[in-house]
């Protein structure tokens, strides 16, 4: 394992150098928010404070992404024949991504990188991205990453893990991809001998700060249809307004819609994030809607994350514990409580949502 020390005085300079070879993304201040977004030339990522409002999902999977272009000009011999959009010319670097967000890509990858069929757009973006994470020393009150498969110092899905040591970032280089990024940035200073110990201590301190958990131990064993037919869904769903906040802020939600648009003779086929919270999501052409009721849609979201995904991949829940859906749900529907209801279902019949 290589450790490299980056003096903060060398930080901006290194990013400027890396910018020549990479498209840089990071936490960016936008008004009162900090969102994960593209960095303007020379712009420094905001690395203080809590996690970003919008996750790093869009680095690999933009909210709107053009898949094909075509001409609809009848005089054009290639009219109506779709042409794949070229991939971005330069690789991307997600600088200062939190370990939970980085881990989310591994969960989402199971969907887009299936053994038999590959989502070429997601994969080409994912493979062209180097994930330079920042260890999370100040986890928030709604962070429950440690019980959701990762943690504030989790290295899963990362190429480099940075630790803020005050005057410097201590970098743990995890992959060749990460080493290439460090080289492009020109950071190569030897790290102190106790670097590993610093990471260990930092991890222990950060993990100890995480007070929030989800219970997931029984989710796999309770039969799907038992949870589906559980009696608590009406109560869970009552307050829901069926907006897309939870699904759009979630780093692990991946649903999308495909749309064509034409202006003049030039057309595109693009995909846009979609949300299982919207009635239109499942509406048939006939007018029939298998999830026409709010409670069905709310159930779908939680069942997908906490049961279908668990059963399908046998690898835990489709949630990294970032807490965004809890922080920003307009009506305070809390995935931790729903998860507890599901996990304890049949065991503790008196368990209420509140």
């Amino acid at each position: 394992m290589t450790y490299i020390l980056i003096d903060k005085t060398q930080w901006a300079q290194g990013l400027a150098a890396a910018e020549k070879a990479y498209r840089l993304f990071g936490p960016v201040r936008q008004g009162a928010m900090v969102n994960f977004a593209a960095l303007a030339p020379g712009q420094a990522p905001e690395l203080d404070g809590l996690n970003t409002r919008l996750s790093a999902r869009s680095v690999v999977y933009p909210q709107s992404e053009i898949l094909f272009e075509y001409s609809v000009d009848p005089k054009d011999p290639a009219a109506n024949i779709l042409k794949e959009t070229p991939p971005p010319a330069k690789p991307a670097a997600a600088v200062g991504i939190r370990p939970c967000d980085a881990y989310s890509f591994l969960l989402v990858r199971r969907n887009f990188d299936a053994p038999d069929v590959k989502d070429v757009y997601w994969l080409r973006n994912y493979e062209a991205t180097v994930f330079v994470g920042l260890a999370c020393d100040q986890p928030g009150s709604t962070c429950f990453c440690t019980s959701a498969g990762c943690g504030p110092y989790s290295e899963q899905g990362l190429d480099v893990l940075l630790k803020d040591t005050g005057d410097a970032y201590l970098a743990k280089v995890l992959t060749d991809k990460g080493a290439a990024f460090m080289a492009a940035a020109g950071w190569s200073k030897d790290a102190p001998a106790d670097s590993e110990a610093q990471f260990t201590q930092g991890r222990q301190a950060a993990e100890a700060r995480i007070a929030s958990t989800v219970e997931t131990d029984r989710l796999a064993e309770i039969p799907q249809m038992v949870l589906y037919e559980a009696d608590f869904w009406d109560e869970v769903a009552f307050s829901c307004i069926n907006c897309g906040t939870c699904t759009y802020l979630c780093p692990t939600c991946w649903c999308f819609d495909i749309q064509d648009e034409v202006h003049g003779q030039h057309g595109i086929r693009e995909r846009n994030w979609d949300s299982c919270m919207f009635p239109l999501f499942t509406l048939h052409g006939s007018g029939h809607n298998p999830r026409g009721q709010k409670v069905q849609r709310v159930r779908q979201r939680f069942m997908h994350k906490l049961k279908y995904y668990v059963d399908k991949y046998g690898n835990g829940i489709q949630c990294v514990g970032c807490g965004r859906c809890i922080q920003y749900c307009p009506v305070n529907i809390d995935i931790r409580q729903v998860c507890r209801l599901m996990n304890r279902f049949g065991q503790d019949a008196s368990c209420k949502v509140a």
Partner: protein
Amino acid sequence: MQAYTEKMREIARRLLKECRVETVIGFRKGSMPMMNEPCLVKSIDDVDQLVWDGNCGINLANYLTNRTDQIAVFAKGCDSRNIVTHIIENKIKREQLVIIGVPCKGMIDKRRIRSMAPGEITEVVEDGENVRVKGENFENTYPRKEVLQANCAVCLHRNPVVYDELVADLVPEQQDVDRYEDVRAIEAMGPEAKWEFFEALLAPCIRCYACRNACPLCYCPTCFVDESMPQWVGKSQNPVDVRTFHFLRAYHCAGRCTDCGACERACPMGINMRVFTKKLEKEAFEQWGWEAGLVLDQRPPLDTYRPDDPQDFIK
């Protein structure tokens, strides 16, 4: 606020016990500071879930749409006006409702308090005219009136306009309020400046539709943004589509909006989309002297015709 909560539980218990209603719609304590969750109470055993404080900004009229049961609902001034609008628009029947009026002293602006806090907030306590905000390494106290939601600060109808019961004495209405300072500032801009202003205002929008879905007025079975034949609006993040959504939605609320602030409160991206609905609310007031949801026996100006309707704009 504790007095409100206790009175609410008492009324709810009585109404359920006397079988005057099947359900009570109110709020229960949320899992985070400054958050309460709308809840539905059907059993006397659950009445003690009900709470009231400055974090009940969600408009409960939104939960009444097309219900068929007998309901008791807690209603601030704005909620009550939206209930009136719902009744006028046949979304609920007056006979189904026991409206429990909640004289309101304004809701707390969680976004503003969060933005002022030096770290993550762990507890917020309302203490009479003050709000105490605590975090891991800080504790700040703000006068309540300085941390009200923007719509509450300029509210002229804090008391419910229609009610069957009250949880407390009526509160004095605010006087000498300048409701439209922000709207006038935008009106004064030239076309270019307006365009830029709206472009910047809407840039953070992720089209989650929380504003629309939190709004009691937005009950259309299929919203125009979801229509596919014809498709009125594109589905992407293109600013033209985002702008079209917000402007058209606002127009659909013209003469109906009560400025309850639910849209802004719900927005996960902190967009002040109330400037759109407020402009239309201002027009409704100036053109027709109309304030939405005050009376049950008058239809809003945009779905009635009167020979003296203003028509200076027609050349």
